């Protein structure tokens, strides 16, 4: 893929370190700006390339915090994060982040198609306009998530499940190697759930790495290779009989 002429992060781009895991989190502690309380305490994790990991825990357990820290949305208090061997922010296009639905102003006048197109922006950088290639990628992911009929709808006029699929479509359009999904299955209808499951299976086939926050214990073993359990900002031992899969944490 060609580099953007004027990349957003000012040309700050690193190639992956050969053989490095997709994600290494070392004794990470994170607090939200302006607060003292640690939202994440001493969490360590190694996610190999191609793994699909579920972060499981109740609300407030630190799942979203961990994903935000990896996406460089929160400053690190102590510890370290390595993405393909590099510090966070070293390769923006390689990391896609799917936010919770509440983070977006859904009433903004933009169509689903254009929302998905914003997933290509990281490859364009400043001043560049989307090419035919970008647009064909957008059409392909919209089709993959069964949203073709809704592509020209304003985004507030989609159901919750459709909005969730639109966000996943955008994350896919970015063609990232590491996907950070914050509650992609939260409060979605059965159709959407099935479509997202198919996407997760497909990502595995492509060797992509997925880390998804969820508090739904239902279908962990079908959608994920392993699960990490969090409570009150720390990693905890999995509850009895809970799905663990191949162990990824250290």
């Amino acid at each position, binding site marked *: 893929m060609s580099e953007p002429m004027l990349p957003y*992060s000012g040309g*700050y781009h690193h190639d992956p370190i050969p053989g490095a895991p997709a994600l290494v989190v070392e004794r990470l502690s994170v607090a939200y700006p302006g607060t003292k309380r640690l939202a994440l305490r001493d969490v360590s994790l190694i996610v190999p390339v191609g793994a699909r990991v579920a972060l499981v825990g109740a609300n407030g357990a630190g799942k979203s915090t961990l994903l935000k820290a990896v996406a*460089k949305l929160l400053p690190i208090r102590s510890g370290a994060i390595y993405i393909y061997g590099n510090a966070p922010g070293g390769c923006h296009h390689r990391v896609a982040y799917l*936010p919770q639905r509440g983070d977006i102003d859904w009433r903004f006048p*933009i169509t689903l198609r254009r929302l998905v197109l*914003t997933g290509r922006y990281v490859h364009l950088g400043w001043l560049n306009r989307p090419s035919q290639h970008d647009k064909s990628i957008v059409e392909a992911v919209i089709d993959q998530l069964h949203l073709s009929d809704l592509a020209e709808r304003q985004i*507030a006029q989609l159901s919750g499940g459709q909005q969730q699929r639109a966000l996943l479509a955008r994350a896919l359009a970015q063609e990232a190697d590491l996907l950070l999904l914050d509650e992609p299955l939260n409060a979605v209808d059965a159709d959407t759930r099935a479509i997202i499951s198919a996407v997760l299976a497909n990502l595995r086939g492509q060797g992509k790495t997925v880390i998804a926050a969820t508090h739904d214990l239902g279908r962990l073993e079908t959608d994920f290779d392993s699960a990490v359990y969090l409570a009150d900002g720390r990693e905890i031992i999995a509850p009895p009989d809970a799905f663990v899969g191949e162990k990824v944490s250290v």
Partner: protein
Amino acid sequence: MNVIEWLIAPFRYGFMQTALIAAVLVGLSCASIGVYVVLRRMAFIGDALAHTVLPGLVVAYLNQWNLFGGALIAGVVTALGIGWLSRREAIREDTAIGIMFTGMFALGILLISTVRSFRDLTHILFGNVLGVTPDELVLIACITVMTLILLALFHKELELTSFDPTHAEVIGVRANALRYLLLILLAFTVVSSIQVVGVVMTSALLITPAAAAALLTQRLSRMFVIAVVIAILSGIVGLYASFYADVSSGAAIVLTATTLFGAAWIIHSVRRARQPEDEEIDETQMEPVL
């Protein structure tokens, strides 16, 4: 006198031609940036910026400096000040704006009151598009061209940071930097519109056309076009009212925009009432983007 004669007559005068061009240029820049101001819920900042340029204008006037220069400095300083203050958690943004805007406006009034006869006061407060000089017209044109070019160049990032600043940050776009860009452009735009509608009513040209457009379409590109058309139409109607009825041009422009907003509101309400129920769509999310 036939209609065409009636329409053409005012523009036999040079000052009316200048006023027409000024009104069109200011309508273009105000309505365009106004779309972002409305969608990003920055209406209060727009109004505040217009008021805070007053001390700059007065200081420049008293020292016989360029009025534009004085207003621009005050506007840019305020834009940066608001941006800086609103980064802090201690004071909420709207509170900070309220404090700064009234403080600066009061400073302007205080400075004015030190001068016995301040003939231009009403022009500054309420605008006088008929008094635009050719020099000012050149400045207005420069500001409009600059504003439109920068809005076009950074459109995709401005759009993204408006509805999803998180994604912007994740891909390395500094949402805060774009906010500063918008605030500084806003300062320039506000200064250029003061001559037309004055300090007190400038936010009407920023907000009213864009708000009306938001009621009529859910496409951003169309919203820009509709807002610009409404703003320019308001400017032209205001000019005629001022010429034939000898009323305040600024007030006539603003009231025309307000009337057009009312029409947009009626169209929107009629459309909503006609819209068939769609079971898939959550009714609470069908509100306009205001």
